[in-house]
């Protein structure tokens, strides 16, 4: 057996189908997604009396106010008691017994039931309560050791909530661009067993690509997302092996609404950024959906590299931003289709990336390497929305606070 890769599945046994953790949540309980979808913990807090409550309810349990808001919480608390489940009626947990669970009393707040990370010492113990997305895409609470950022990949069972590239087989749809090259390298560095590097128009050589292609984990494959036959052919050849797809294919030009005659460039942006994604989704999505439990490292995640400007528009790059908005809308639908099968769909929303088409954009710009690192970090965690870099974080804060104000500001 090669060093570093998980044991291969026994080909005479039926491929396991995904059993997912219970996904039922009340409407108000879906508010728990706010934190872990982007990374972090948010808890329901009463705007009148300040009480933090869990589980979420329609009214404050302390003062009966209905003015309840979601606030970030540092998760500091104590694991006061724990148990190890040895029997479960839920199929998901039945297949994973024994399962460690406990009660965490938050400092100054409620006591909650949480999964307990293997690295947490026996109760009583200080812990950090964090929120994660499980394979159903729902928020769950996890007690992790305090002091360091939560790392679920070091717990053999909780690691299933992540999409850790280590030992997985990944496809980068456009590996020639600067972002694509950085993405391939980051996946290799994260321990991916195979990275298929998609290449369109092979006669156009990009500086640096030969070195990426020469990495032992990398296999160059022809893939042009504008060509349905190319997409279908690759899906037929490797679709049943791909555990992670990172869609980096991007036609990026920098035209304002009135900055160019005709729609030819804009049509190509849509053809690559939206229709290309649609082709990929239809070719690779169904088989990924069937492979979420295919071996110890099954199909795990689909990542679309989008842009914060997909959410706000960008007059300076109007048509490109619109094409990214279309891809963002499709990303939401892909999540609706793939998440119920246990495959996470991650949207990545950087600000301007430091690549040739943004040469005239003022810093701060996100380097392709930083973008790729953020994608890997997202896969090693459980988030489904990533806003890498200062510009994206600032945009996110303003979008959540007042999208109308941001729209006006963008127009200036």
């Amino acid at each position, binding site marked *: 057996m090669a060093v570093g890769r998980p044991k291969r599945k026994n080909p005479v046994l039926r491929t396991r189908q995904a059993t997912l953790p219970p996904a039922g949540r009340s409407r108000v309980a879906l508010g728990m997604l706010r934190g872990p979808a982007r990374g972090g913990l948010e808890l329901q807090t009463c705007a009148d009396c300040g009480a933090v409550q869990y589980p979420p309810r329609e009214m404050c349990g302390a003062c009966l106010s209905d003015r309840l808001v979601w606030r970030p919480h540092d998760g500091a608390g104590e694991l006061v008691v724990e148990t190890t489940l040895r029997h479960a009626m839920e199929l998901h947990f039945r297949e994973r017994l024994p399962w460690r669970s406990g009660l965490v009393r938050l400092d100054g707040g409620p006591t909650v039931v949480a999964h307990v990370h293997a690295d947490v010492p026996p109760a009583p113990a200080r812990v950090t309560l964090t929120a994660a997305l499980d394979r159903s895409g729902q928020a769950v609470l996890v007690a992790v050791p305090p002091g360091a950022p939560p790392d679920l990949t070091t717990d053999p069972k909780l690691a299933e909530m992540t999409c850790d590239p280590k030992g997985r087989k990944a496809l980068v749809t456009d590996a020639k661009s600067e972002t694509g090259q950085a993405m391939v390298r980051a996946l290799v560095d994260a321990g991916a067993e195979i990275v298929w590097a998609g290449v369109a*128009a*092979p*006669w156009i050589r990009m500086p640096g690509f030969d070195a990426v292609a020469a990495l032992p984990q990398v296999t160059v494959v022809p893939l042009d997302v504008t060509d349905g*036959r190319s997409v279908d052919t690759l899906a037929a050849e490797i679709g049943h092996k791909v555990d992670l797809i990172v869609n980096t294919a991007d036609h990026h030009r920098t035209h304002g609404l009135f900055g160019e005659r005709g729609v*030819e460039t804009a049509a190509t942006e849509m053809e690559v950024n939206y229709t290309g994604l649609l082709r990929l989704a239809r070719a690779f999505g169904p088989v990924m959906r069937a492979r979420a439990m295919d071996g110890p490292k099954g199909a795990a995640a689909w990542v679309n590299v989008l842009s914060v400007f997909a959410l706000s528009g960008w007059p300076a790059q109007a048509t490109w931003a619109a094409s990214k908005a279309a891809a963002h809308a499709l990303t939401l639908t892909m999540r609706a289709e793939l998440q119920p099968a246990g495959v996470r769909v991650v949207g990545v929303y950087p600000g301007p990336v430091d690549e040739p088409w943004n040469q005239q954009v003022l810093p701060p710009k996100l380097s392709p390497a930083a973008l790729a690192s953020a994608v890997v970090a997202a896969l090693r965690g459980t988030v489904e929305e990533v806003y890498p870099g200062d510009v994206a974080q600032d945009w996110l804060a303003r979008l959540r606070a007042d999208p109308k104000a941001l729209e006006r500001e963008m127009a200036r």
Partner: protein
Amino acid sequence: MTGPLDPASPDPVLAFAAALASGRVAVVDLTQTLSPDFPTIVLPPELGQSRPFRMEEVSRYDARGPAWYWNSFSCGEHTGTHFDAPVHWITGRERQNGATDTIPPADFVAPACVIDCSAEAAADADFLLTRPFLEAWEARHGRIPPRSWVLMRTDWSKRTDPVAYQNMDEEGTHTPGPDEGAVLFLLKERDVLGFGTETIGTDAGQASHFRPPYPCHHHMHGAGRYGLQCLTNLDRLPPTGALIVAAPLKILQGSGSPLRVLALVGR
């Protein structure tokens, strides 16, 4: 008409049809297959780009159309084996009858002279066809007749790997073509109908650096003459005597079009 075609018919078309039917005239296809994998011209990315050939299935005996199979396709006018009309170039923009819908149809059928540069192109990807080379060809095969195609055979079409076909490095494409002297000689002293190549352009790969840039496009289209690109099977044509049938699609004010190019060769 009844009975077999008569090769001695006084009607030249019927006599020709008889020759065709008897196999004395071979039909050679000079056309590359229109496929998504066939490369299109590479221009600096900030410029407008030729759409590559793409095909989407409309139905294939399925719910989208139970008894029929058909596709939609899209491509630039200058994709695959294609025809360049005079209005393709700035120098030809004022030409009367210079677009695909207005070119006189008689121009779509014409004889061809095939200049074999295959050995030279194999030795030097940037090989340039010159006036002396043409004059040496004429010394062997006779004077190039007016209103005929001149086809530059390089065997470039045998490069079936698109990377080798494009032959790009950091300075762009390296493919053979004519120099300005050859183009001016063919136009002003031989009155040719047009110039055809096996590569993506009628000009050499490095012709954007020539003076003038793209001399074949510049002069040929300025004179109201035509171009054929991405031809194949030129090695199956005689130096003289082939008749070319090359009719572009009748696109309103089109600058060119993909087309089927046929050569009729007597034997």
